[in-house]
């Protein structure tokens, strides 16, 4: 029998598996819900800062038949906080988020200190991966990295930052390189700790925000640096692209990741056509998972499969209020696709 890990790695290697994998990586693609916290008795926000709890909550997602992977962390603030941004850890319902920037202008990036991977939540995340590696087998462990533009715009005040991408290009590139070098260090440490796959999403670096030219110049360039470094270790990579794709398909095609994951607004059929040789992941509406009934989730899961999704997953992070039975329905339906 194919294990969950074998299946995912096979698919990410471009080979055919017995059926699509069904995963939700974590990070921006949140898979923790209030209902799941109640079932396993491990709660946010505490699990954001405690490796044992983080690993246990990640395990609960697989054990309760939500998704066929483990994934940490459960937010998009670990890197930004380690680089000096102030964050709140949120609640059972709210994810951690940035409350204060470390710098107000890209010109000050020299004041930033590189991330300390042996302290704070970077260490918690790496320790959680080590625990998962030591205590489990056959289930893929996914380490989540926040994309370079999103980290850069969480550390530096974003309105200024976006403008400086155009007005101070040389300096902006220096800053992006500084951030990316740190992300690479963090990603490689995750692989070293035992992650099988690195997933990256860059919601603040979309084609809609930057336009095709700057999406290419900044997002694609620096995402590829992270992806290339991870691939060199033999670990697999998934890049989630937020937002509408029309203006940037040809640019996205330049990203080297093993798989692409898309937002609910993207037609997978169209994505397949535009990215013919790529492994495609997606994109069951998280809105439907939170607000609709199981039969709608079932229908949407079937539609994703029919449209050519190789890895079935939610289209974005799950809402914390999503009912457990709806979340579980995605995997239930995917299991019926077995040949």
């Amino acid at each position, binding site marked *: 029998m194919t294990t969950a890990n074998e299946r995912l790695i096979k698919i990410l290697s471009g080979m055919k598996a017995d059926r699509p994998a069904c995963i939700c990586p974590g990070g921006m693609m*949140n898979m923790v819900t209030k209902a799941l916290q109640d079932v396993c008795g491990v709660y946010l926000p505490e699990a954001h800062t405690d490796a044992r709890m983080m690993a246990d909550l990640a395990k609960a997602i697989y054990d309760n038949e939500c998704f066929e992977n483990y994934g940490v962390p459960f937010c998009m603030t670990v890197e930004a906080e380690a680089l000096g941004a102030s964050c709140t850890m*949120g609640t059972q*319902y*709210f*994810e951690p*988020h*940035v*409350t204060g920037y470390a710098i107000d202008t890209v010109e000050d990036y020299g004041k930033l200190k590189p991330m300390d991977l042996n302290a704070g939540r970077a260490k918690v995340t790496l320790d959680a991966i080590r625990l998962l590696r030591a205590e489990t087998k056959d289930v893929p462990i996914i380490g989540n990295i926040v994309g370079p533009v999103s980290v850069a715009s969480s550390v530096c005040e*974003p*309105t200024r930052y*976006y*403008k400086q*991408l*155009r*007005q101070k290009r040389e300096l902006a590139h220096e800053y992006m390189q500084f951030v990316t070098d740190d992300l690479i260090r963090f990603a490689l440490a995750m692989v070293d700790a035992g992650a099988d796959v690195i997933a990256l999403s860059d*919601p*603040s670096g979309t*084609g*809609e*925000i*930057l*336009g095709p030219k*700057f999406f290419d110049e900044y997002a694609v360039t620096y995402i590829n640096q992270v992806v290339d470094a991870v691939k060199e270790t033999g670990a697999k990579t998934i890049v989630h692209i*937020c*937002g509408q794709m*029309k*203006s940037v398909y040809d640019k996205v095609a330049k990203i080297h990741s093993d798989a692409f994951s898309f*937002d*609910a607004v993207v037609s997978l059929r169209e994505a397949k056509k535009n990215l013919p040789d790529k492994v495609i992941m997606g994109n069951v509406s*998280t*809105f439907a998972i*939170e*607000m609709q009934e199981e039969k709608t989730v079932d229908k949407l899961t079937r539609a994703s499969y029919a449209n050519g999704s190789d890895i079935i997953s939610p289209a*974005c*992070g*799950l*809402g*914390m*209020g999503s009912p457990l039975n709806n979340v579980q329905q995605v995997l239930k339906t995917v299991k019926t696709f077995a040949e």
Partner: protein
Amino acid sequence: MATKEELLQKMSDMVFEMEDEEIADVCEEYIEEGYDALDGILHGLVDGMNRASEMYDQEEYFVTDLLLCSDAMYAGLDVLRPHLPEDASVGEAKKAVIGVVEGDTHDIGKNLVKIMMETAGFEMFDLGRDVPLDSFVEKAKEVDADLIMMSTLMTTTMPGMKEVINKLKEQGIRDSIKVMVGGSPISQKYAEDIGADGYSRNAVEAVEVAKRLCGVE
């Protein structure tokens, strides 16, 4: 000596082309020539911003472009505004409360909507980001707002929008105020499901929807 039309065109072009440094000089020259400040705002600066919006609609301009255009517009406004007659800005402006809902701090989209709304003549009350849900209701009551605009980039914080609508109902003021929602995970369907009055995909469309809801022209 430049004619009024030449200067207006220059101001519009400078906003459109994101030149935020020389625009103040051109506005100074416009005022020194004795031309009308309100015309300068509407037919110069705002005209440039509207042209930028059109390019945004056609996907030739993107969010970062609009932010730079608005910098130029505000640089010009700083010069022209003090020359408005005292009662010119007050009057019939519709009032809108805007903010990013609690749990989220992504405010680029919200800022852009605010800019476009101001360009269109709305009086904006910006609550910022990570806004406690009660604050939307309190501020709307305080300023007697015509419209509440909420945004979020995160799926996890979407339910807060529905809660604000419920709070308006509890307070008995739901019918006297319009509610608009936006942000990348939001859809027309979601807006309808939570009982919002309007949704828009982007900042340019937001102005059209807001005008329609508030019965402006």
